[in-house]
């Protein structure tokens, strides 16, 4: 399998990796039915203090990985290490890992304070210290006055915060979050993203976060592991992930993407020449192609394309505007370029924008480094 680790080791705040991995998946496989592998040979190091997100469509194996780490699912093969200790035979309650569940899993028969006291009670923490810790945890999520309420009396966002506070109240080194914001509305979700991010920065805990929402993954994480089909497709920091996708799946899954399929005709180290299916020639960045003669899908971000380019980029093509969609801050232009009528260009809504209308013939241009020649999509 291909794991493109290391690309993301560029963020300054993510220096903790030098201290050794907090979590290590070593050749982990998982099968539920003995016929198909849900997780295929997973190798992953998570550094102490890191915010790592497992991102992928449903059924890609990301939640299974989290459940194996938490101890609720046994690994079929391979070993998982926590602080250099193999934990395959350690039951979940002895792993000391905090966890935030998708539906919060706050105990409905206990008050908020009792929910927070639970992990402390089972650890035999003294009464006075319990109260002190509960108060601090509730203050941290700005719910100081809500200790006496039942979970059902709280809003979704408040329940979410209680769940986070409960997962942190016993000072775990590692916290797992399984799509914790899935049930919230968009605005609250964005707010909670920042709150969780800040808590992570303030406490320095290691967080493994599972989501299928790419925006969430990009805004919060130090590194993102993109899962598909039981395999990590790419493991990088968010900016690298977006700007340098390593294969077509990642390019398509993260952000919006124009794909043009063709064949590599020449490679000269830095660049390669691609002949599209309608005969057009492009200069592209050969990220994931074998060499001249191989099929490829060229990936191109809509915001990197210029309409009627003033300077002279490597690639300039003719296009016909099919549809204009007004989105406020930008305008989505659907065009027919090189035989592809799903070609999207984002035009910023600037004061000096040129008037365009449907049916216009316009030149579109982009530089070679902005279009990535990736593996061919079947």
């Amino acid at each position: 399998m291909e794991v493109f680790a290391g690309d993301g080791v560029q963020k300054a705040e993510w220096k903790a990796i030098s201290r050794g991995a907090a979590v290590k998946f070593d050749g982990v496989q998982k099968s539920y039915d003995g016929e198909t592998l849900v997780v295929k040979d997973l190798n992953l190091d998570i550094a102490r203090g890191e915010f790592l997100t497992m991102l992928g469509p449903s059924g890609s194996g990301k939640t299974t990985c989290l459940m194996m780490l938490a101890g609720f699912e046994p690994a079929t093969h391979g070993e998982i290490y926590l602080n250099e200790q193999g934990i395959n035979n350690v039951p979940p309650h002895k792993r000391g890992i905090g966890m935030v569940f998708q539906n919060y899993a706050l105990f409905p028969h206990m008050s908020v304070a009792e929910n927070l006291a639970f992990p402390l009670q089972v650890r035999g923490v003294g009464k006075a210290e319990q109260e002190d810790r509960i108060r601090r945890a509730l203050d941290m999520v700005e719910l100081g006055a809500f200790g006496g309420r039942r979970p059902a009396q709280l809003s979704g966002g408040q329940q979410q915060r209680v769940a986070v506070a409960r997962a942190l109240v016993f000072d775990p080194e590692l916290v797992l979050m399984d799509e914790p914001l899935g049930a919230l509305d968009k605005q609250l979700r964005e707010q909670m993203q920042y709150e969780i991010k800040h808590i992570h920065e303030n406490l320095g805990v290691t967080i493994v976060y599972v989501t299928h929402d790419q925006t969430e993954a990009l805004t919060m994480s130090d590194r993102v592991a993109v899962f598909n089909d039981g395999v990590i497709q790419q493991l990088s920091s968010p900016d690298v992930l977006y700007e340098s996708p390593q294969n077509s799946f990642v390019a398509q899954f993260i952000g919006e993407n124009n794909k043009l399929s063709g064949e590599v005709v020449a490679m000269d180290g830095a660049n390669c020449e691609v002949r599209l299916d309608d005969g057009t020639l492009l200069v592209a960045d050969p990220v994931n192609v074998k060499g001249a003669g191989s099929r490829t899908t060229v990936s191109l971000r809509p915001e990197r394309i210029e309409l009627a380019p003033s300077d002279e980029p490597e690639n300039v093509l003719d296009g016909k505007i099919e549809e204009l969609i007004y989105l406020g801050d930008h305008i989505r232009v659907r065009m027919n370029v090189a035989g592809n009528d799903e070609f999207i260009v984002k035009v910023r809504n600037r004061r000096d924008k040129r008037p365009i209308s449907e049916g216009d013939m316009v030149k579109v241009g982009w530089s070679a480094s902005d279009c990535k020649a990736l593996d061919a999509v079947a």
Partner: protein
Amino acid sequence: MSSATDTPTDAIAGDGIVRAADGTPLKRSLARALRREKLRSFLLIAPLLAFVVISFLLPIADMLFRSVENNIVRDTIPETVQTLASWDADSGELPDERVFAALYRDLQIAVEKRIHTRLGSRLNYEKSGMSGLFRKTGREVRRLEAEGPFRERFIEIDEDWADIEVWAVIKRYSPPYTPGYFLNAVDAELTAEGVEMKPENERIYLTLFWRTLVMSLMITLSCLLLGYPIGYLLSHLPARSANLLMILVLLPFWTSLLVRTSAWKVLLQQQGVINDFLVWINLIDDAGRLVMINNQTGTIIAMTHILLPFMILPLYSVMQTISPSYVRAAKSLGASDWTAFWRVYFPQTVPGIGAGAILVFILAIGYYITPELVGGTSGIFISNRIAYHISTSLNWGLAAALGTILLLLVMALFYVYDRIVGIDNVKLG
């Protein structure tokens, strides 16, 4: 409802009443709008309501009334009752001639209508010998001349008429309503000195009530102990296996109650399957065969089996709604398997336990067929005694009193349960 939302906010007049657009108070116009709907719903439930009232509520009310109703004395010997009013039972003297004369006239009519024996049976519940006294007197009184002195004549017929206690009983039970049945039902009686407990050897009902309660509780408890793991298993199995297991749980519902109870007879009796097996493996010898039927053991075993589905179903339906993530969360927070179960899972199943326990207990406390068949003498319930008074001894008043007490008992327990557990915590599905 729409009329409420359509009302402009300025519709509040000076008097503070919110009004609809045409000036009628909003409440009234809302009620009018809903009237049709209410009428419709009422018509939909009307047939069932009528059925329940006619076939259920009215007979029960009639039965409850019988537990205190006592018009028979007053209706059969009206003049005697009237003249007896001035007689003082504590005086130590027999009633005077006027009373005997009245009794003579009353009995003439009663014997003509052949209702004097019924009065005898009624009074026999309170004092034995009264039935025979009235039957004998009824035979003789027709031949009696209409001339006095009646007192001597009656004593000639039967010297019991000289017994002051006989007259005291007649006087005591002459009012149209009597607490007699209820006193009987709690092993007490009305004597000249007031309410007293019956002699030790004549008390049966209090013991029977107590036994019914204790055994119902034991049955409920054993249903819970057996049903809880099954409910847990059912709710944690994949749907296919759960459905199969569910069919097995419901299987007893599809077999006749009588067949199931008889099957237990075959299994449990001293020459039965279980005893034979235990003898065969030499666990017990042939002389020491276990007595497991026609006693309390038999009743508890058979009734636990019969009522088990009523415990499993509510438990299952509640357990099904408990997300497995609660237990997972508890474990991730550091709770061992047992702590996670006991502090997180179990409290959430309490509504199911409540529902199942109430259902089983209430069914058990009024159960009749199974204790009758496998209970012998020591394993019968109060309901068997009620049935006996309804169909054999024909003492309907006492049966009604016993039934009323049973009903009140269940309601009292229900109230206590509500105070402790809370009835809104009960979930049937």
